[in-house]
């Protein structure tokens, strides 16, 4: 049980050797994928994430009603067959709101990380590869962003962008979270590049006259993918928490667009008599973050057993 330590690997009974070593899967990627498939945590995480994607994608079909339609005659209804999660102070169906709320969380969580990757990875590649003044200039800017307590920067950015509803509002939150997360990827990639660029195969590329951009994207980047993939998955979990927190503070996507953090906060005023109104959006945030965390953990154990 080499590389053990996570609770899941330990569930494999002692005495059964892992067939990964018998040569069926030899490339590091195939081995990693194989380990990923054997990890209970990763599979549970992946299942949660897939359910979430389906719910967000097919919200129109799955939701029993409109998340924004007011029904003054049906305010504060307790959970029932008609409204499995009850209704809020405007009579809106909470199940529909929770289902549609997954869109904002998922879109912001995934796209803010992708945006941060898109900007951070090239910056890290260039800074690490060219070194010198380029490196100093890029990393100073990154250091300034990193010198900020993350929430201070995110909150001020959101006030600057003026939070709004709908897709535009979602994009603003995405942008604010992406900006505070760029340095994480830039630093990570720069660190990997610094060690990779000294390797013989990169020297060989230089000797063969391969162009810089091809060396960077064809040879250096693929070799620092493993930590990037792991950080990305766990980063989505963090981004979803940051989004929920901003919404909770009233600085996320604005109503009427359904957002879990906002719903939780808005319904706190009625928590005494209607606790489920805050409970369900909170549970939705929890399971979503749990899903990405479990999957990210499994991925880390599978792709890079050294990082534990």
């Amino acid at each position, binding site marked *: 049980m080499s590389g053990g330590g996570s609770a899941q690997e330990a569930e494999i009974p002692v005495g059964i050797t892992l067939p990964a070593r018998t040569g069926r899967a030899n490339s590091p990627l195939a081995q990693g994928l194989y380990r990923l498939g054997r990890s209970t945590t990763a599979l549970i995480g992946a299942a949660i994430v897939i359910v979430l994607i389906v719910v967000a994608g097919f919200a129109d079909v799955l939701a029993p009603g409109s998340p924004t339609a007011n029904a003054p005659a049906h305010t504060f209804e307790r959970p029932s067959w008609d409204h499995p999660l009850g209704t809020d102070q405007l009579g809106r169906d909470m199940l529909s709101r929770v289902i549609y709320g997954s869109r904002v969380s998922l879109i912001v969580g995934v796209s803010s990380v992708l945006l941060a990757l898109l900007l951070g990875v090239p910056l890290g590649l260039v800074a690490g590869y060219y070194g010198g003044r380029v490196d100093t200039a890029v990393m100073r800017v990154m250091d300034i962003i990193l*010198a900020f307590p993350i929430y201070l920067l995110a909150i*001020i950015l959101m006030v600057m962008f003026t939070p709004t509803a709908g897709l535009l509002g979602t994009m603003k939150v995405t942008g604010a979270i992406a900006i505070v997360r760029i340095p994480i990827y830039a630093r990570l990639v720069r660190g990997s590049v610094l060690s990779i660029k000294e390797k013989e195969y990169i020297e060989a590329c230089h000797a063969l006259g391969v162009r810089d951009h091809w060396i960077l994207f064809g040879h250096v980047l693929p070799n620092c993918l493993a930590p990037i993939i792991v950080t990305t998955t766990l980063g989505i979990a963090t981004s979803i928490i940051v989004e929920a927190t901003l919404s909770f503070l009233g600085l996320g996507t604005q109503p009427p667009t359904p957002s879990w*953090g906002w719903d939780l906060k808005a319904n*706190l005023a009625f*928590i005494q008599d209607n606790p489920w109104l805050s409970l369900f959006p909170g549970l939705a945030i929890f399971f979503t973050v*749990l899903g990405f965390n479990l999957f990210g953990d499994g991925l880390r154990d599978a792709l890079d057993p050294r990082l534990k």
Partner: protein
Amino acid sequence: MRVYVLKRLIEIVPTVLAITFVVFVMMRSIPGDPVVALLGDGYTEEDAVRVRAEYGLDKPLIVQYGIWLAKLARGDWGRSILSGRPVLQDVVIRLPVTIELIVLSMGVALAISIPAAIIGALRQNTWADYTATTVAMIGVSIPEFFIGVLLLLVFSIGLGGLLPSSGWVYLPGTCPSMVCGVSIWGNMQHVLMPAFALGVARAALLTRILRASMLEVVRTEYVTTARAKGLSERPVVLKHALKNALIPTVTVMGLQVGFLIGGAIVVETLFAMPGLGTFGIDAIIARDYQQVQGFALITAIAFVVINLLVDLTYTFLDPRIRYA
């Protein structure tokens, strides 16, 4: 060592300047300004111009920042545009509340994570370990405010108002005015849930990190040696293993400071505490420039000083680490 600390303290200056300057520029690039909010709806443009001039808001940005810095050098943090109160006075009143919250929450975090991680690592792959790792996994996936809401549901609503859901009772000696409630017992009742909400989230993360590093340390040769020379389990675990395993944990604690400040804002908002977190978020939303500058300044200083303390903790945990 003394030289190192001095050097690091001097290095704080550019970081704090950078943070406060960026905040300064960002706040002033937000559309609209606090003067309009101050004057209300029925203001005339002449009033606005006069008030802007009074607060120096008509000058170029860099000049305004220079004025702010110059005043700061004389110990003047400026006055709130909206309330007219000195910013420093508000910060001094609110700081103890937030410090109490953060210190207690770190205490909660350590009190949970150290035993949990030790049990997890020493009894690896037993039910105790599974419980510790599962609970920790759940803990890192719950945002602070939801932990707070769950605590509210149980202790304020479920158990018939066992703990107060909002407000604050000051510790003796920290009361800012004549009218606030002062009592140690009342203070404990008010701080318990916020400190747990903030601490449990940290505890989960620390347990994961500490368990992983304990697992590595207990397999090292010096731990085997300590056991072989007949030391009982207690000193082996606490003195030999734990102390070394704490190094990565302390690093992570340092990296968490940014999140801790955010957590304080959220938890103070949820429990309506009169701390720096609520001060900051209210100031930012109201665009009270002077208050925001004060908040940015105190957060930046806290952020940098805590990171320095983290680095100094290394020398205690591992005497081989010396800062020349």
